[in-house]
């Protein structure tokens, strides 16, 4: 089991999830974050922390979203670990409104 960052995480990068991660399992690129499934301990603190509801438990990942497992695992190898919250992207509020959050 792990937790998975899905499509909602795009163009906002609030990174509240990062501050609540006890094991530094998040990785970041220009537009979003990913979870390293090898490091996540399934504490679930990041789920309520995400303002756009992008993070789910692997168990709750719908069939048509299963590809996010692979995407997170691969991106975690490619992008650097992020340990502290960043300022959200300029597009963050617009993205949040677009998602109806």
């Amino acid at each position: 089991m792990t937790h998975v960052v899905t499509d909602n995480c795009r163009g906002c990068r609030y990174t509240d999830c990062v501050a609540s991660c006890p094991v530094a399992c998040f990785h970041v690129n220009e537009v979003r974050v990913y979870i390293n499934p090898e490091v996540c301990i399934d504490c679930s603190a990041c789920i309520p922390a995400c303002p756009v509801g992008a993070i789910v438990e692997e168990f709750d990942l719908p069939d048509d979203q299963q590809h996010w497992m692979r995407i997170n695992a691969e991106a975690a190898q490619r992008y650097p670990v992020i340990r502290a919250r960043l300022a959200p992207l300029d597009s963050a509020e617009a993205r949040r409104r677009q998602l109806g959050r």
Partner: protein
Amino acid sequence: MAIPGTESHPLRVAIVGSGPGGFYAAEALLESGLQVEIDLIERLPVPYGLVRFGVAPDHAKLKSVTAVFARIAEDPRLRFFGNVEVGHDLSVQQLGALYHAVVVATGAAGDRRLGIAGEHLPGVHAAGDFVGWYNGRPECADLEFDLDQEVAVVIGQGNVAIDVCRILASPIDALRRTDIAAHALDALARSRVREIHLVGRRGPVQAKFTPKELRELGALPGWQPRVTPDALQLNVASQTELTLPGFVHAARNLDILRGFAQSPADDGRRPLHLHFHRAPVALSGEPRVERIELEAQALSGDAGAQSATPTGERLSLPAGLVLRSVGYRGTPLPGLPFDLVRGALPHRDGRLVDTAGKVLCGWYATGWIKRGPSGVIGTNRADSVDTVATLLADVAALDAVKAGRAGLCALLAAGGQRVVDFTGWKVIERAEIERGRRDGKPAEKFVRIDDMLAAATA
């Protein structure tokens, strides 16, 4: 003088308590970019607080967070002072005089009572004591729980209540491979509990447990979680709550509960009944608890602010063992203000304040002693990051000549205090792992403080 945080004038901070809140406060200070000297003071000879004494023994993956704490502790700017109790071995006043800032991270290990008739009866316990007992917490090691009883009632709607149900219902062979305390394993191996009731005042949407924990109740061999479809009927406000940000787990929880409700009424497995909208009103029995009286509750009020009020309808259940998990309270530190209603330290943005609302310069709080018993391990990291940000914003105002670590060491030496440093803890930990190896367990914890201290010098 200058602003503390430089090579010649480091920021000297004491952190009281070495659970998640304390360790994450230390991490945030170490990463602040300032020159810091951090002393992490722990009442017990062993670190990690509720990760050691609260997290259930079968949740090994969660417990693995201790590897992160151990890395933090290895930073040379931090020193661990185990077996040092603030308020006993040194006073709050002495501590404040030694450091630029003190971060209190003592958690919330005390329990809230139900406040109902019969609560004093033998067989009625705080769930937190049961958790401490099976996790080898020294204060709880000598408690006795009567597992000859066939019916256990657990009161509460959070993860602790679920942990307790799961441990009572787990196959003993699954627990044998965990670091559960030997005395608890022996007692649970002889348990005759064959029926469990999990009772909560509010509805499935307001329940505080996480989906992961709830789902685990459905995976206990030989046990069947049962919930009546009626209990899952939602009023309009509860339906609205499903979409509110503060109820992020509610929809998943409801799905899981609906799955439980669909299974046949009795499939021969032992029943684990989940009761919603039921509040305990009395316990009775002679000479020990035998029954619990519940009263039906109706929710009313706006979405996000509903409260439960009794309807008058009563239900009586047999109850040989009652474990209550209806909230936790911190313990006051002599010399610091305390909010008796919240059971936590009064604060503003993490700065301690007195009863008049005036800031106590240099004093901060983080974790459960700050915000009350809510959230999971990671929630405390975000909380500690916030508290440390507040502290760092105050640094210019904290300037003074402070003795810091040298002063603490002198004071403890003068009192003849036996201090366990992190190297000492590692020796204890290795001994616990070695003790566990014999029985195929990841560790067999020492449950007596004297044994911990003896192991540290072995």
